[in-house]
């Protein structure tokens, strides 16, 4: 038959069961990526000697190579790093202890960090420099000005891009099965192989991802409206 609706409906719960893991990876990667992105942007803004160059190469490399290739590189590099850290620094970790999730989290964090650093850079440069001066003039330190005045404003500017990044991450987690993480895509593959109905499983997976993206698109749109409330309506 052309489309086995019964199989599609039967596999749907199994595929939906992968959503928490996909979301876990995405949320972790976006939060950790924001931290990394912010540090990278700071290095670029203040032109820290060695780190500035490294930051530029880091961003260019991540944006110029496919996510899948990055996942593979992390998959082979991380055990080596763990072993090296265990031997040279005497830490009690070895490559055998690494759970599959560690590879996925590392790869996706590094991936989103690079893109987010560009987002943060654009957002920070959109904030009027006068805001920093105003902060200094009332006696705030650099960090205090950042935290209380600049970052809240930059956050509103960055929000749409962060939302896009998050959606990209959700879709990106479909590659996590290559490092043996069980999420939506792996469940779809398992269901497909089980019943020899490939198209129906992937239609299910497509709908699941589509709904996830629509839900988070709406969520971010709501967030954007809420955080933008401080902006007075221009005449």
């Amino acid at each position: 038959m052309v489309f086995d609706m019964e199989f599609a409906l039967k596999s749907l719960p199994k595929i939906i069961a992968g959503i928490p893991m996909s979301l876990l990876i995405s949320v972790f990667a976006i939060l950790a990526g924001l931290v990394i992105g912010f540090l990278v942007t700071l290095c670029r803004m203040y032109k820290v000697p060695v780190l500035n160059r490294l930051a530029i190469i880091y961003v260019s490399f991540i944006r110029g190579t496919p996510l899948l290739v990055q996942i593979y590189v992390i998959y082979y590099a991380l055990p080596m790093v763990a072993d090296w850290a265990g031997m040279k620094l005497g830490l009690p970790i070895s490559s055998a202890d690494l759970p599959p999730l560690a590879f996925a989290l590392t790869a996706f964090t590094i991936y989103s960090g690079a893109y987010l650093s560009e987002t943060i850079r654009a957002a920070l440069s959109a904030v009027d420099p006068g805001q920093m001066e105003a902060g200094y003039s009332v006696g705030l330190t650099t960090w205090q000005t950042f935290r209380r005045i600049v970052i809240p404003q930059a956050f509103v500017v960055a929000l749409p891009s962060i939302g896009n990044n998050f959606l990209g991450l959700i879709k990106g987690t479909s590659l996590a099965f290559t490092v043996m993480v069980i999420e939506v895509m792996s469940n779809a593959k398992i269901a497909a192989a089980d019943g020899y109905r490939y198209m129906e499983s992937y239609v299910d997976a497509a709908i699941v991802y589509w709904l996830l993206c629509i839900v988070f698109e709406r969520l971010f749109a709501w967030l954007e409206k809420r955080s933008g409330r401080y902006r007075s309506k221009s005449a």
Partner: protein
Amino acid sequence: MGITFNPEYIVKVFPKLLEALPLTLLIVILSLAFGLLLALLLTAAKLGSSRILRILATWYISFIRGTPPLVQLFLVFYGLPQVLKGIGIDINSWDKVVFAIITFSLNGAAFLSEIMRSAYQAVDRGQQEAAFSVGMTPFQAFRRVMLPQAFAIALPNLGNSAISLLKETSLAFTIGVVDVMGRAQVISIRSNGVNQLELFIAVALLYWALCFIIEKAVALLERAFKKGHKGVAG
């Protein structure tokens, strides 16, 4: 597991990867070409007067943008033969590359149509009116006046799309296409678990170099098409 790292292997394996480069480039170029054509139709649908075409186009774009490229690839690879078998067409003998090109064309079309749409809407409407006022037909006005300007505006984003497309083709090996990534998989299996990291670093460097080339090419095109144009960013 030992910590062995042989940088020389990266150089050694590079030529073997380059052998598969023509296929990767073929997929990218054909997907871009067909994607652009389909995007034109999509943009026409979204800007046109038919309400149902507009709704269909919007849903199509939303679906493509809301689902991972890998899922789309599997849908086309597994789904298309099944659907066509239902109406009596057997495409089991098609080369796998065809499925990859179909997927990336369909995928690219959605993103490209959004880029085209915003670029077209960014061209001053007065240009079109001026063209009409000197007696051009709507098609002539589009081809001689609107299109060149819209193209210049769209160029940076088109370049980004080309780069995204290139990176997306790395997924084609999952359906058995032996492009650069597919070749790397073959080498990986044959090498019995040795030098894996060096292999995929080489792959990454190759893609990085290709993206760099595309960026430079787009910059050259931008300069050629924007001759005499005075904008905010120059």
